[in-house]
């Protein structure tokens, strides 16, 4: 009887294996073969798991891009217009699944990929992209480490991680009066946040600030009280958090609870997200944040128009204020579309060549890549929450409001 059970097992195993991968070995047929009428792009998204919030924002950005491009008739490839067709898969916020998805897209002949959210996922994907000869535009993996590995097929539209806190430091150095003296960095302990902190500390030292020892807390925690208690006694003039939304909210909330009162707060990532001001209410006032994009960003392109137009479209379609995660996702998609048009081809190699030579203005600002694939040409904006709204205060040429600086004690 045991043997029979085993026989059943073998049959099930074998047949499920066959179902898991029906098809025959060999180079998969290109999904973008001439005449198919579509340009298929694969997008791996964190729709469940710890990054689901950002994953949804990213998906909105990709989705709006597809609509905008198709509303104009589609992507112009060598004179024929083809519809953009973005295929989504959930990577459950796990890097190994994100990497596996890239392979699965490759099986379907999809060579053009839009990245998942977050540096860990993107880094895992970049390695696979390279091996498979695919091409990825990275919308949200900002850690410079990804671009130090010699990968040739991953391009990031966003400014690198080192700029996130550094831009806040520069804005304060330029605009705050009286000029504060000391800065404390509080950082999540993931790779991206640490790179942000390193970049920020370097900029702060260069600008002549006294930089206190950075304090770390676990990525994703909602309790940062130990880090705050530690810096409380040092009375820093400025606290800059290298954080994601949860930790960013926690810093502001718990600083108030603990009576930690620097002259100013700055945080990467968190403040530009609509949830930030919504969650914190009055406490969010005057917090500075760095943003990859704001609706004051200069530049225009044929699909989205200006940043203001883009903001309206997001508001209309998704019923919330635009978030830079939306914008960077749309921009990544836009870069891929523009490169395919420039190349007149949907072949990965041709699009890659076009991408590396791309130099264009867009609603997202300049899109231009250096030899490692990073977009160093677009400055980051610094926003400040004023009356519940995130307004651009730096760089001054695109500022919507003056920075409010409560003053140094």
């Amino acid at each position, binding site marked *: 009887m045991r043997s029979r059970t085993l026989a059943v097992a073998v049959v099930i195993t074998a047949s499920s294996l066959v179902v898991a991968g029906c098809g025959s070995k060999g180079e998969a047929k290109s999904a973008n073969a001439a005449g198919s009428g579509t340009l298929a792009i694969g997008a791996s998204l964190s729709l469940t798991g710890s990054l689901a*919030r950002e994953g949804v924002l990213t998906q909105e950005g990709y989705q709006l891009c597809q609509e905008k491009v198709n509303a104009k008739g589609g992507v112009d490839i060598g004179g024929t217009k083809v519809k953009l067709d973005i295929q989504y898969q959930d990577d459950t916020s796990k890097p190994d699944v994100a990497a596996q998805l890239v392979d699965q897209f490759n099986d379907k002949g999809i060579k053009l990929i839009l990245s998942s959210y977050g540096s860990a996922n993107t880094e895992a994907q970049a390695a696979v992209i390279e091996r498979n000869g695919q091409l990825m535009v990275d919308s949200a993996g900002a850690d410079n480490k990804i671009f130090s590995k010699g990968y040739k097929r991953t391009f990031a539209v966003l400014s690198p991680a080192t700029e996130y806190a550094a831009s806040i430091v520069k804005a304060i150095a330029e605009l705050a009066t009286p000029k504060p003296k000391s800065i404390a960095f509080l950082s999540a302990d993931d790779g991206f946040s640490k790179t942000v902190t390193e970049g920020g500390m370097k900029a702060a030292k260069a600008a002549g600030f006294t930089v206190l020892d950075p304090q770390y807390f676990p990525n994703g925690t*909602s309790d940062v009280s*130990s880090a705050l208690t530690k810096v409380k006694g040092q009375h820093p003039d400025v606290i800059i958090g290298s954080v994601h939304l949860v930790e960013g909210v926690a810093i502001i909330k718990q600083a108030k609870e603990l009576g930690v009162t620097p002259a100013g707060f700055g945080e990467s990532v968190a403040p530009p997200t609509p949830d930030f001001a919504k969650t914190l209410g009055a406490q969010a006032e005057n917090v500075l944040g760095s943003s990859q994009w704001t609706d004051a960003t200069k530049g225009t392109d044929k699909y989205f128009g200006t940043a203001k137009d883009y903001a309206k479209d997001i508001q209309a379609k998704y019923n919330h204020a635009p978030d830079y995660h939306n914008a960077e996702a749309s921009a990544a998609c836009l870069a891929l579309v523009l490169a395919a048009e420039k190349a007149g081809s949907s072949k990965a190699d041709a699009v890659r060549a076009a991408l590396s030579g791309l130099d264009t203005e867009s609603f997202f600002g300049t899109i231009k890549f250096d030899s490692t694939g990073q977009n160093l040409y677009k400055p980051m904006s610094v926003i400040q929450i004023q009356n519940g709204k995130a307004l651009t205060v730096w760089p001054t040429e695109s500022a919507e409001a003056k920075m409010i600086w409560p003053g140094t004690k």
Partner: protein
Amino acid sequence: MSGFLQATVYGLLQGGLLALVAVGFSLVWGVMNVVNLAHGGFVILGAYVGWEMHEWFGLDPFLGMFVSAAVLFVFGYVLQRFLINLVINGPIFITLLLTFGLDLMIVQGMNLVFSADYRSIKTSYASNSLAFGSVRVPLGRLLAFALAVAITVLLVAVVNRTRTGLSILATGMDRGAARLMGIRARHVYALTFGIAAGLAGMAGAMIGTVGTFNPSAAASFTLMSFVVAVLGGLGNMYGALVGGLVIGLVQAWGGQYLPGTWVNALAFLVLIVVLIFRPTGLVGRAFYAARQEV
């Protein structure tokens, strides 16, 4: 020194909140030997109920938490009565799997219904704090802490003094004997689970007031409940409170004096050391431990 005092105060308050989160988890484990992996989901669900109450009816979260408790109680009662009771006599890890499945459904259900947006129940006072010299005592957390202590005391009174409570205790010690004495185990189990879920719901409303939440935060509350419940000792109603306060203090002090994020390793080190040298927990009762080991 003021850093130490501040850390101690904050750690105690944080510990009280953790105790409130874990007390229901500990109750269910102690009485039914069910490790409820959906407990964190219950907590977050309670936070959403509190949030909705505040958003739509302007109900203060310290009142809204009673709505959370009521909703979660019903939810918990029904779950135990009609689902978990079905496998309660199976191998013990089966309830673990069942509640894991529940957790997947609850968390993804919340994701679909409420989206993954981060939220917080805003009050005018919860972030204010009382100043004692250089030490700040945040009001919201102080209230939550007081509530945790009050609920623990109340729970002990209910369990030790009332008929219902005694039937829960009796069923926990020996289900067979309890049934012979006319206690309806099915109902008592459902009641226990309902109470635990209700307490989780209350804790959720508190969490939502002093912190930020979204569905994916559920997992960390389940994990914390594990640590707190075991540390305090199962079955002892004061166990969760003791465990919560110990973890709160360990984390606050460790965070103050350890570099990097070593403090997180410290919490687990304490857990393991306690388990090795005092496996019944800090205040656990012997007969519960014995029951575990049979």
